């Protein structure tokens, strides 16, 4: 069995952790009570980990485009291959969309955002209320749709491991 390179595997599991944290924190933070000690802390963590995800996926996309992130021939049927590739392609579409809308909403004041009193994130431009609300809608529902693809991706991996009993999952571990 030929495994993915160590860097590819690290980026994969780092992305998985970050995306999982982003979804849970994003889902939870908007429901927090105003008097909760997490009311300001959790959004700040959501922004910080969002920036980490942006950084990891910047590297991931560079590696993909330069061919460093090597594809292994998956031991699967053509149909499964199309489904899997489409799901993974949509990951790129949705993660990039979520990161961009998140960043633009975070800096919609037109003022740079300062995280943990030290990390300065510059604002590119200022946005009007209706534009921010549209981005918020895209960000929220985009996240739900992304989770559907994540579920599909996980179901695929579990199916290969336990039903087909092939190396698809093992290669990324």
């Amino acid at each position, binding site marked *: 069995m030929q495994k993915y390179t160590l860097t590819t595997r690290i980026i994969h599991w780092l992305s998985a952790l970050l995306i999982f944290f982003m979804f849970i924190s994003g889902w939870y933070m908007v429901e927090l009570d*105003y*008097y909760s000690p997490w009311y300001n802390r959790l*959004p700040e963590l959501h922004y910080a980990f969002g920036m980490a995800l942006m950084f990891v996926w910047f590297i991931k996309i560079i590696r993909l485009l330069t061919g460093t992130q090597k594809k292994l021939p998956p031991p699967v049927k053509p149909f499964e291959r199309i489904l899997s590739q489409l799901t993974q392609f949509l990951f790129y579409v949705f993660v990039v969309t979520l990161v961009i809308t998140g960043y633009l*909403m*975070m800096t*919609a*004041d037109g003022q740079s955002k300062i995280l943990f009193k030290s990390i300065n994130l510059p604002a590119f431009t200022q*946005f009007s*209320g*209706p534009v*921010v*609300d549209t981005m*918020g809608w895209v960000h929220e529902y985009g996240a739900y749709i992304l989770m559907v693809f994540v579920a599909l991706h996980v179901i695929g991996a579990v199916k290969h491991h336990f039903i087909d009993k092939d190396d698809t999952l093992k290669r990324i571990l």
Partner: protein
Amino acid sequence: MKKLFILLLFALTPLAQSADYDLDIKGSHAFVQFKIQHLGFSWLYGRFDTFDGSFSYDENAPEKASIEMTVQTNSVNSNHAERDKHLRSDDFLNVAAHPTAKFVSTSFTPTSDGHGTMTGNLTINGVTNEVNLDVEFVGAGDDPWGGHRRGYEATTEINLSDYKIKRSLGPDAEKLYLTVSVEGVKK
């Protein structure tokens, strides 16, 4: 004949010199401001940037004064994009369902010097309540550009729960102080 003509002239002239004024939106000499306490520690100020309206006032019959104003709720501005997004959501103003807030006067009780109390129906978040605004007459006269202007500042207090605002930020942030400061240009 001359007598008849004068009589006719009087008949055609409205008894009261009622004048209608449009709010000076173009020159932005009208403001819808609010303040509310933050945790009981300080005042948070905000405003609505987009609104329109008109009023009428007759010096000979001030009790007939009336005003109508419509505010675009998505223009709420507290100088903080994230807070404004939250204020537009269904936790507060629910601007998607209720894009406008409205005040339509029903009666005016003049006191002295042009001041008085304006009573009317205030609609916020789709809920209408009767409110009384303390109206202070600021000034009136010819402007330097050939128009005639008249200005007022009105204040009132409203309880957010009266307008079914879903989210409460605590007992100190229940009462909102509203100030509507307007300058009208005679039509």
